[in-house]
């Protein structure tokens, strides 16, 4: 642990964080999840060997994952390679695009929904100017209208039902 902190301090001055930092986070994340499943599994009941209960399999897999994630943490703390630099802007924009689709498709219809989704998704890339984004969104939404509703015949409303 002390060794790890030292290494963190070392790397704090440099451009990239060491992967050890992320690796430990990932392992810890899985450890937390496995504990949730173990506790939840015991609450559901593990049953007897003959009649394995609802919670038996979550508990078994949870224990295996808990052991493995401790192993992962131990292994990753020794990893001194540079970590990937997270791209939180794209992270938010792509998540936002999915959220926009989910919020709009049932309310204002597939075509306008896709239009807004495309614009949201294209925001983090500065190499496409705003008029270009509009054009792309128009093109994609119209093409999807033709493809999914016209050709494939999926039962979506293209536009909001007017009633």
């Amino acid at each position, binding site marked *: 642990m002390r060794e790890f902190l030292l290494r963190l301090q070392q790397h704090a001055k440099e451009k990239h964080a060491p992967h050890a930092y992320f690796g430990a986070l990932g392992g810890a994340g899985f450890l937390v999840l496995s504990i949730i499943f173990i506790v939840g599994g015991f609450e*559901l009941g593990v049953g007897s060997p003959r009649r394995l209960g*609802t919670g038996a399999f979550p508990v078994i897999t949870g224990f295996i994952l808990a052991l493995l994630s401790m192993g992962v943490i131990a292994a990753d703390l020794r990893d001194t390679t540079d970590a990937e630099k997270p791209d939180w802007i794209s992270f938010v924009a792509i998540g936002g695009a999915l959220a926009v689709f989910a919020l709009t498709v049932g309310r204002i219809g597939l075509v306008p929904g896709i239009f807004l989704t495309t614009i949201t998704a294209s925001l983090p890339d500065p190499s496409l100017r705003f008029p270009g984004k509009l054009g792309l969104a128009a093109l994609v939404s119209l093409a999807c209208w033709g493809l999914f509703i016209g050709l494939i*015949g999926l*039962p979506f409303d293209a536009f909001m039902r007017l*009633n």
Partner: protein
Amino acid sequence: MKHLLALGAASLLFAAPAYADPGKWTDEPVRIVVTFPPGGTSDLIARVLAQYFESEFGQKAVVDNRPGAGGTVSADFVADQDPDGTTLILGNNAPFTIAPTQFEDLPYDPMGDFTHIAYLGASTPALFVQPSSGITSLEGYIERANTDGITYGSSGVGSITHILGQAVDVSLGIEQIHVPYQGSAPAIQDFRAGVLEAYYDMVALNGDLITEGETQPIALASPERSPLFPEIPTFRELGHDIVIENWTGVSGPAGMDPEMVQTIHDTIEAIMQMEPVIEQLAKFGIAHTEMSSEEFTSFVDGTITTWAPLIKAANVNGG
């Protein structure tokens, strides 16, 4: 309110002659919501209906599969739609008969949130045992269950075959060991591999296995013997009043216009009388009986009450 009721009753009276005017009831395309993924019997029935709606009556219709949570996802969706005849559900025992007892927090009321329109028909499950077991009668089955124990396969927890197994436990005073599968096909596979002693399944889907001598039907859960398999006795004639059938019908959201309901009912009834449709449904082991919308409504209500104790006994919601 009184006026409305009177108006409804009057229009019903005028429309009383059976299938007076089958035909188109809306200019919009109708979506028939199916509680199962594509490919099952239910889906195929919906597709047959949609096809004939359009080809015979010019009523455009599409099938909309919304599987999930024992059909409750579909039913919840339909309950929330406008009652303008553009959304119908191909309902069955899962969301309307079993779910109301199975789930405490059901998001819809199976009676109050729906207009039950037309009954289509039902298929019948039967009890099957290993031919090598030497069991040929219900008495033999009871005896074996009481001495060596019987392990039976069903098509899932809370499925109609599980409820039937439960009803048999109660009615025959035995305790079978229940092994749930996902659908009847894998249960039959394990049965043929010799893993299970018995299973419950729709009799019409087991015709080949019966003729091949791979399986032995013992008793049928319909009120009367099946015309397809007249040699199989019913539970009822063997002295056990077990009638559990897999029914299917068409319903819509609550508050539909009674005249429209009548039109839809008559259109469906007209389709159900057509020769190719009768043949098609016979292949799925479904025989159609006519019911008016009112009869169908009280039928659905009736199944909820009569099945409730069995579903509770089956303890399908865990524990």
